């Protein structure tokens, strides 16, 4: 029997579900947020948001949207972690946060004894990781990244550049290496870069393909963000955030940002889902909140339901960093835990039959 709490006091799961359904049904604009859940949970959440006429957003949608804005603005060339590992003879790591985004990256990409050249631009805090590999070139600080990338792109195109934080001969050498790569791969974490920097990097990748082969590997944010975005893409036709308040899916990154909706008072009830870790919402304002959480002790919501960790407590479908695909993830240590998808189904079933507009 799943643990549940209503206003801090232990409650039966059925009572918690009924309370949650009541709060959602009584609200004008509920928002389902966090959305750190497996594919089944994301599918259930989208269905529930549609049923409620509410908004839905993932805690890392801002990072996802940085890549997406570049993609849907001017396009992108991408490849897989497997191809980077098997074929990449030159890797261009860009910015900080890569080791955090893909914990196995050093083992997958750095450990095969010199078969590829690796350069890391502006690693920032990742300099510690970079420092373990003496053959890895490290250039620049995070603040200088936009200029360094622009200069690199210009040099690769044979244009002269002015002075940057990186010595001219080092920049020229790197540009030559990029142009001469047989299958180069740029890696970055959108959570740690801004949209224009990503746009410049993706432009460089496209430019290099006029003469050689080069591609990009965006590292996904955590909490199953990439898989949840795919779910929204196929179910809604749009990435998150999405809102169903007008009876159909609408996408607007500003209007339907969950934190903004709550802070502005437009949203008057929140359903927060976090199955992969003890993450709390970014908003400060208080409003009726239901939390489905794998680590509920830190949350002070009106209703809290303990749910399982996908791929640990129960079988799940989610994003696999090693392959950058959606894959079936069997439970590593099965436990009697309530999957978020089931909790959401119970809440949906407890809603009154017709929701007033």
């Amino acid at each position, binding site marked *: 029997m799943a643990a549940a709490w209503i206003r801090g006091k232990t409650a039966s799961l059925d009572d918690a579900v009924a309370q949650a359904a009541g709060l959602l049904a009584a609200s004008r604009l509920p928002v389902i947020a966090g959305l750190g859940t497996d*594919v*089944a949970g994301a*599918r259930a959440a989208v269905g529930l948001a549609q049923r409620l006429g509410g908004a839905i957003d993932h805690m890392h949608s801002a990072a996802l949207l940085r890549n*997406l804005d570049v*993609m*849907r*603005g*001017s*396009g*992108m*060339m*991408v*490849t*897989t972690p*497997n*191809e980077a*590992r*098997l*074929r990449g003879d030159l890797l261009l790591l860009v910015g900080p946060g890569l080791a955090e985004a893909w914990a196995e990256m050093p083992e*997958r990409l750095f450990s095969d004894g010199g078969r590829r050249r690796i350069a890391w631009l502006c690693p920032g805090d990742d300099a510690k990781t970079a420092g373990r590999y003496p053959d890895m070139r490290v250039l620049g600080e995070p603040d200088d990244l936009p200029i360094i990338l622009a200069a690199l792109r210009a040099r690769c195109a044979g244009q002269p550049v002015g002075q940057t934080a990186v010595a001219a001969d080092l920049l020229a050498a790197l540009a030559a290496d990029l142009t001469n790569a*047989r*299958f180069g791969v740029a890696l970055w974490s959108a959570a740690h870069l801004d949209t224009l920097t990503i746009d410049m990097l993706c432009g460089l990748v496209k430019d290099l*393909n006029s003469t*050689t*082969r080069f*591609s990009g590997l965006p590292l996904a944010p955590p909490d199953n963000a990439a898989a949840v*975005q*795919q779910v929204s*893409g*196929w*179910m*809604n*036709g*749009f*990435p998150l955030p999405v809102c169903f308040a007008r*009876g*159909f*899916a609408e*996408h607007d990154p500003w209007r339907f940002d969950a934190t903004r909706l709550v802070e502005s008072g437009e949203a008057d009830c929140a359903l927060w889902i976090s199955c992969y870790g003890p993450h709390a919402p970014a908003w400060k304002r208080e409003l009726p909140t239901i939390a489905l959480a794998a680590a509920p002790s830190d949350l002070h919501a009106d209703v809290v339901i303990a749910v399982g960790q996908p791929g640990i407590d129960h*079988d799940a*479908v989610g994003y*696999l960093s*090693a*392959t950058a*695909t*959606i*894959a*079936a993830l069997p439970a590593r240590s099965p436990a009697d835990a309530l999957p978020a*998808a089931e909790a959401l189904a119970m809440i949906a079933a407890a809603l009154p039959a017709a929701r007033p507009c």
Partner: protein
Amino acid sequence: MLTRLTGGRVIDPANGRDAVGDLHFRDGRIVDAPPGGRADESYDVSGKIVMAGAIDIHSHIAGNNETLGRLLLPEQRYALDFVHPGHMPQPRGAWNTFETGGLYAAMGFTTVVEPAMLPHHALQAHLELSDIPIIDKAALTVLGNDDFLLSLLRAKESAAAVRDYVAWTLAASRGLGIKVINAGGAEAFKDNVRSFSLDDEVPAYGVSSRAIVKALQRAVSELGLPHPLHVHCNNLGLAGNVETALATIDAAEGLPLHLAHLQFYAYGKEGPRGFSSAAARLAEAVNAAKHVTVDVGQVMFGQTVTISCDVLRQFNARNQARPRKYVIFDGDSNGAGIVPYDYRRSDFYNAVQWAAGLELFLLTDDPWRVLFTTDHPNGAPFTAYPDILALLMDRDLRAQWIATLPAEAMAVTVLPSITREYTLAEVATMTRPAPARLLGLKDRGHLAPGAVADVAVYTPDRDKAKMFRAAALVFKNGELVVRDGAVIAQPFGRAFDVRPEAAREIERRMRDYYDARYGLSPSFLCVPEAAIGRPDPFEAVSCSR
């Protein structure tokens, strides 16, 4: 519950039926008229046309590539048509999975095949398929640019080894058949090769595109798969590529072969622009090659997006993107290219493409072997189907369209001189029993007792587009799902798959291969039934072995 449709003109080419009469079904199956004749539910369809539900053999509706297309083009969804009967705004494109099922059902389609499922992305393809309501579906598994196969061929391993690998991949990915897309081209492109033809060799493997196609064709045949090898040829879209299509037809060597979206290979080099329709020549070859089937891939004017695993072709076409953006994905074997495109009436090339597709339909003589597609969304969205049927059935309508197109484009085709009009029976054959037979779906595409009660009823109209756009009634497994073009119920169908036998050793061999090459277990590409999240999501189709 016994349902009866009375007084309709039942067109069922598979069973030689084209006459006014009744149709009965019970428990999701067509049945004989019961003696005594009491039906629980009766529909008077006098004056209407009754056919089996239509089957689309090649339409890109589900998978990571399709979702990339959706994410790339939000503007297709912001452009809204308020035409839906429920007055919900209807996006012009980039339809989500729920919209896809409803839009197909409204036109009387009850089965659709996703033709390009990448093995490493099979689970996502099936998840998306499972969120498409009403229709039954299937997916074809893509091979031909994968290291394992190319390595087998380089090492000159046995046909049995290829067979086992194909069987293993089909079973793991739950595909219905095998698709090969510019065999070797995607792999060659990773080695910076920029053009790739049937007799070119993949660097590092020394294996030709032709050899890959032949090896897969042989494996498909020896496994007894119901669907022939489904081939996307080299050189798509290039002037003069009719030679590639003809060479590929020859390469079939008497064994079954299906050529996808043939219109995109119907180009010659004649005329002042060095680009012309060669569809007449191609149609003649198709007519003579009785073991070859094709689907047309008709182009229609308007904004769309091209979604294709032919990475090389899409990369080469990237600068024609309209709007000017694209995604090129170098996947683990085949990948994808997503390139938006706007086919324009005023564009010489697009007008020739439009004509070439119609020429293929009208100059071929066997509706059992020439199937009806737009290679959605690559030639046009599937919602253009009613308009294409109208053009096939009405030569005056064709003439009206031709009059609006650049004369110099029509001058390099023979379309203006073609007077043939498709009959209802030919339309029915092409869209029902022909695809059913080609997919091994013995109880679909026809209306004999025992067939699944997938039934489409149309109201005849001089305007054939109107007739086919909004079916009067559509039954799926005997349940009424569409009335007057509006979806009234959304049950979920199933995905068909084949489970050919493979030698036991292949499991171990693939585990060892994935461990050695990727340092991973191959379990990531499997499609466990429990992961789909719907009851009973699959239905096995039998092999002939």
